[in-house]
């Protein structure tokens, strides 16, 4: 298995005085035919990384190769083999889906015939045939996103970059997108995808790279990261009078100490057993007559990963500057 995308020590600063260090020595490797997910909060440098690898932006320093080609020295060759679908669907809104695909097909130097055939094929594949002759303006967010993805697949790229492909989609749209992506991956494409959701990385990626403030803070498979974070938790709330008893039950069951939030009457405990722990807890509650108000298994969120990995909560963009200075101490 050879490396298909290699980034070494990428640095990129923005601003007149280079005051924003968007990438601060980022390195990553994606092996051919695998999926790597770049996971990070807002402003962590995901888009910047994708833009550099897709030849849209030159790094201040560092090197990057896609399929063995240097992205800075031979960008045009890189463009021949990549597909890019940016963070916001970038298609011509006034034109129809069909028009857009034909235009991009022609720009990829397909013949008029070839462009039409490919457009038909892609519209079919992304269930957009019925909407083909409608302007993109009338598309839903999910349809727009799918068309955008279709446009990046016109020449069957070897390497595909997807920047937050499901942000802004409803659960169904997200599910559909995941299916489409899984399909692509089966076809052998090398994929780098960015996301803010651990769950998404979990679904799609072979390997996950977590970044914050422009550099890698953790990497591994979804399982290894979750283990690091502590896996699933069982969360429940019960009537006040049952609190102590319920807590005792779940602690015995999971063999670990529960935390409890007195205001919400909420108990939370690590549940490595997952659903079987949940079922067992419910059975025992039933036996002693406790009726939980709410009970659920919670997967670790990106916030939990962050908390576990960095000791601080993922920061918003506005706090970027103070975040920069904090980083030095880590």
């Amino acid at each position: 298995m050879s490396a298909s995308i290699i980034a070494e020590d990428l640095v990129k600063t923005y601003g007149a005085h280079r005051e924003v260090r968007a990438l601060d020595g980022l390195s990553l490797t994606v092996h051919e035919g695998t999926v790597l997910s770049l996971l990070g909060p807002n402003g962590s440098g995901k888009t910047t990384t994708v833009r550099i690898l897709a030849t849209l932006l030159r790094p201040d320093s560092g090197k990057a190769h896609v399929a063995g080609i240097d992205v800075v020295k031979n960008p045009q060759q890189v463009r021949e083999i990549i597909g890019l679908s940016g963070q916001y669907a970038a298609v011509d809104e006034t034109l129809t889906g069909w028009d857009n695909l034909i235009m991009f097909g022609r720009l990829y130097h397909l013949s008029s015939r070839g462009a039409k055939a490919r457009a038909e094929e892609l519209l079919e594949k992304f269930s957009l045939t019925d909407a083909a002759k409608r302007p993109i303006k009338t598309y839903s967010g999910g349809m727009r996103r799918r068309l955008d993805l279709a446009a990046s697949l016109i020449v069957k790229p070897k390497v595909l970059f997807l920047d937050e492909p499901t942000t802004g989609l409803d659960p169904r749209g997200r599910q559909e997108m995941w299916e489409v992506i899984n399909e692509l991956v089966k076809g052998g494409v090398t994929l780098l995808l960015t996301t803010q959701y651990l769950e998404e990385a979990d679904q799609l990626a072979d390997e996950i790279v977590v970044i914050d403030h422009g550099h890698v803070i953790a990497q591994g498979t979804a399982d290894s990261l979750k283990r690091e974070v502590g896996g699933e938790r069982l969360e429940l709330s019960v009537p006040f009078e049952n609190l102590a008893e319920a807590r005792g039950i779940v602690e015995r069951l999971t063999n670990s100490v529960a935390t409890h939030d007195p205001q919400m009457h909420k108990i939370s405990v690590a549940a490595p057993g997952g659903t079987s722990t949940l079922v067992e807890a419910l059975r025992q509650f039933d036996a002693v007559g406790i009726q939980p108000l709410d009970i659920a298994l919670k997967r670790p969120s990106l916030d939990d990963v962050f908390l576990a990995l960095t000791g601080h909560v993922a920061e918003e963009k506005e706090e970027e500057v103070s975040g920069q200075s904090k980083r030095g101490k880590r």
Partner: protein
Amino acid sequence: MRDALVITKRQLLQLLRVPEVLIFSTIQPVMFVLLFRYVFGGAINTPGVDYVQLLMPGIFVQTVAFTVASTALGLAEDMQKGLIDRFRSLPITRSAVVVGRTLGDATLNVVVLIVMALTGLLVGWRPSSSLVEIFAGFLFLLIFGYAMSWMGVLVGLSVRDSRVANSAVFLFVFPMTFLSNAFAPTTGMPRPLQYVAEWNPVSTMVAGVRDLFGLEPMFGATANSFPSQNPLMMSLIYMGLLMAIFIPLSVRKYKNVTPK
């Protein structure tokens, strides 16, 4: 070049899909013709020649000068929507997108000029020169519009926001077209402004086109200066300069542009 034509075609297709854009971009100059012809025309004194004969070349030049606005707006919009990013990730010639855009705007100018000329004929405009000269006059207008379009490329890619692009361009092109001989003789202006008006590319273009349409080019020329003596040559120099400056700057800008 083939890539550029795909981009041009896309722009023309947009006009088909949203014909309102084309309608409004022709209504505006037509309205100008009517306003100046019937509202201000009566108040502007032009001895020896019908005002509408002088007015039409002025309005033609003003209209093509505003190509800078449509180009800037179109590119700023593409920039905002992320389309430029996508185009830049494709294996196409670096200049294709901007060349395609300027050609598209030039095509639009052809349509607009035809509609305006027809309106002009309806309200009494009668060019008195030969057909060849009239044709040359329109060719001149198109090339001037094309040169201005390249300025629009740089503006559009630099401001990256369609609203800003629009107001920035208007702030600059409006005074430029009015501080000229296009609508009224420059002799009524304060002396320093007369010099500005005389050297203004819009004035040399207007004078040149009037010449080609068979009128005395003098209207507005205040002195025996080079631009008023050789308006056509001066206009050619201006067009050459515009393109020599803005084409390389625009293409370079496109290569390195980043969205906001």
